């Protein structure tokens, strides 16, 4: 790719002589965010370790703005590239300010004393990650989320052009994950910092990244825009999901569907069905869903979880065939679950259920007697 800031060219990484990931090709422009996704042990960290020169590359090239990373002097590289690692940092008696000022290492003099400008940068970096208020706190006493932000500030204090992060969101709760990724997005957007990281959360990867690379089976299986790369089938293959499923649209995984003949018919629509589908899945009750317009929100979860889904066109009247199908299916189930979505067809089906003496419930928890 032209104008690539970071370019990995036929790179093979591993330990000793054993290759973990081979023939990696990746090109990132300035200000882009790229995520490496893949199962545990697939070699994401190995790639990042090689890039940050903790272990030597087995073969291939790594270029940073055209310069060979392997031959850059350590200090020059540190001025361009900073990392947030998974290493546990447990210094005693060290304030968050001290941790961040460690990032000034490439710029300070022989004794590492901070100049007024160094202090300014450190304070600015702390502010950038919303950690200015904990600057004087002992690093060992702050929470996981704060700690990760302080470590990011430490990386930023190097005033890098690219930040490499190894699973920065592990151990963080949802809110802190979002905080961290938002900070990264801002960095990329406002300062043109390039970001390369490994991520476990596919949904987050697809939301934050300009580029996603799937690492698995000893190679980069696919690399490109997240919406093109993180398709249902590819994610299933990448993680070896044989029983569960992944939904690219929602960016979430579903557990495997319960096996057997449908025993409950769920009347859904408008997203009302989703929680009932999941409840039935948890209880291990096979079920049918319908009648859902093909563009309904419920479809994304009904398809992977329900034994059968009865679908109708998104516009126009419901075809009589669909209604008949639904009634026939309902005849074979023990109960009907009313999801609470009011529509003409749901009303008709509910009436049919009552007339034919089916148990009608509004929540899966009421079903126990039937299912047991």
């Amino acid at each position, binding site marked *: 790719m032209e104008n690539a800031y970071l370019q990995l060219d036929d790179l093979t990484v591993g330990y000793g002589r054993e290759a973990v990931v081979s023939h990696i090709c990746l090109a990132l422009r300035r200000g882009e965010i790229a995520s490496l996704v893949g199962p545990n042990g697939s070699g994401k960290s190995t790639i990042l370790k090689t890039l940050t020169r903790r272990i030597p590359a087995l073969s291939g090239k790594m270029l940073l703005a055209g310069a060979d990373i392997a031959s850059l002097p*350590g200090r020059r590289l540190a001025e361009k590239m900073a990392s947030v690692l998974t290493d546990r940092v447990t210094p005693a008696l060290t304030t968050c300010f001290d941790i961040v000022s460690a990032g000034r290492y490439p710029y300070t003099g022989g004794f590492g004393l901070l100049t007024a400008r160094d202090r300014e940068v450190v304070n600015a970096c702390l502010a950038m990650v919303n950690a200015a208020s904990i600057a004087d706190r002992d690093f060992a006493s702050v929470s996981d989320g704060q700690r990760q932000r302080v470590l990011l500030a430490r990386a930023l204090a190097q005033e890098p052009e690219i930040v490499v992060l190894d699973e920065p969101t592990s151990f963080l709760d949802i809110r802190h994950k979002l905080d961290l990724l938002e900070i990264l997005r801002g960095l990329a957007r406002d300062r043109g910092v390039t970001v390369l990281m490994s991520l476990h959360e596919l949904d987050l990867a697809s939301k934050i990244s300009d580029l996603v690379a799937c690492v698995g089976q000893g190679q980069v299986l696919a690399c490109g825009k997240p919406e093109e790369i993180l398709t249902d089938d590819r994610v299933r293959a990448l993680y070896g999901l044989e029983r569960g499923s992944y939904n690219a649209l929602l960016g979430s995984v579903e557990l495997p569907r319960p096996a057997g003949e449908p025993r409950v018919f769920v009347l859904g629509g408008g997203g009302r069905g989703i929680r009932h589908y999941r409840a039935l899945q948890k209880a291990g009750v096979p079920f049918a869903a319908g009648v859902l317009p093909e563009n309904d929100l419920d479809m994304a979860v009904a398809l992977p979880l329900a034994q059968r889904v009865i679908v109708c066109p998104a516009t126009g009247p419901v075809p009589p065939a669909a209604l008949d199908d639904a009634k026939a299916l309902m005849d074979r189930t023990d109960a009907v679950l009313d999801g609470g979505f009011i529509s003409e067809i749901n009303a008709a089906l509910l009436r049919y259920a009552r007339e034919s003496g089916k148990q009608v419930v509004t929540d899966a928890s009421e079903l126990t007697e039937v299912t047991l």
Partner: protein
Amino acid sequence: MAAPVTTRRARAARYTAVFVGLGVLFVLAVFWNIHTGSVDISVREIWRILLHKSEVRREIELGTAGASTVSAYNIIWKIRLKRVLLAAVLGGALALSGFLLQTFFRNPIAGPFVLGISSGARMFLAIVTVALSATVTRVPLWITVAASFFGSMLTMLFALAFGRRTRNMSMLLVIGIMLSYICSAVTDFLINFADEADIVNLTHWSMGSFSGGSWQEVGVSALIVLPTALAVFLLSKPLSAYALGEGYAQSVGLDVRRFRLALIALSSVLSACVTAFAGPVSFVGIAVPHICRILLRSEKPILMVPASFLCGAVFCMVCDLVARTVFSPTELAVGTVTSAIGAPIVIWLMISRRREQKE
């Protein structure tokens, strides 16, 4: 528990106070050591004998000096001054090597004695003594120094090979204790086959003491320790980067492999030098850096290195004073005193660390 928040100014004041305090204690300890003993010498006399040495000497030569001045002159210049200086130099070296080993092993109870380095030195000294007993009556100083130096280095390498992979304090302790058991077994084995007369040197050495050194020894140890300590101080910046872990140190541009070698070399030189000149002096390497951490409330090497050196010097001077005066005329081994103070600190460290982990 919320961590106390201190401002930069308050911290600077604390650092200044610690260094001024240590400086004052250093001077006091030197004077006190020279002053106290079987014969007490007045401060005025000490002052005169130290600062106007040639004048006093001329008086003695001319026979105009009083008898007490003559004996004070001899006590100061032939016994106490070199002893207190040796204690200061080697005490500083011990504390500093402890601090370096703790940084390297990321373990607050690493130290030359705990890692079995002293026992290794003793073993080598025993081997050399027994081997040479047939040819020489008294093993020359330089061979004693070389043997314990070599023994220290070798044990250090073993400790490194086994202890590098563990961050667990108890495990490191076990490794060190096992190493010293092995070395002691070899030493005892050799002693069984040696003549009493041959091993007098060894027995004396094993006690750990700052006494009996010549001015030459003081000079040589200062020549080794002071430049090494200066080198450590000049490495304060990479030391602080290294404290965050090798990954982060490397990511800010430190050549970790080379630095690691430098760290091992410097701490080995320091602990080997102490072991060679004073024998096994235990626990100073752990106790002193820990005291400094508490005083400074900081782990910054640029503060810790000079503070540890100063504090180690003061600590050993005071312990030596205790060793030779408390049960006078019987003199204790200085290692006895340092252990009595240092071992409880190690126990306390382990207990408080365990409590931290539980919280």
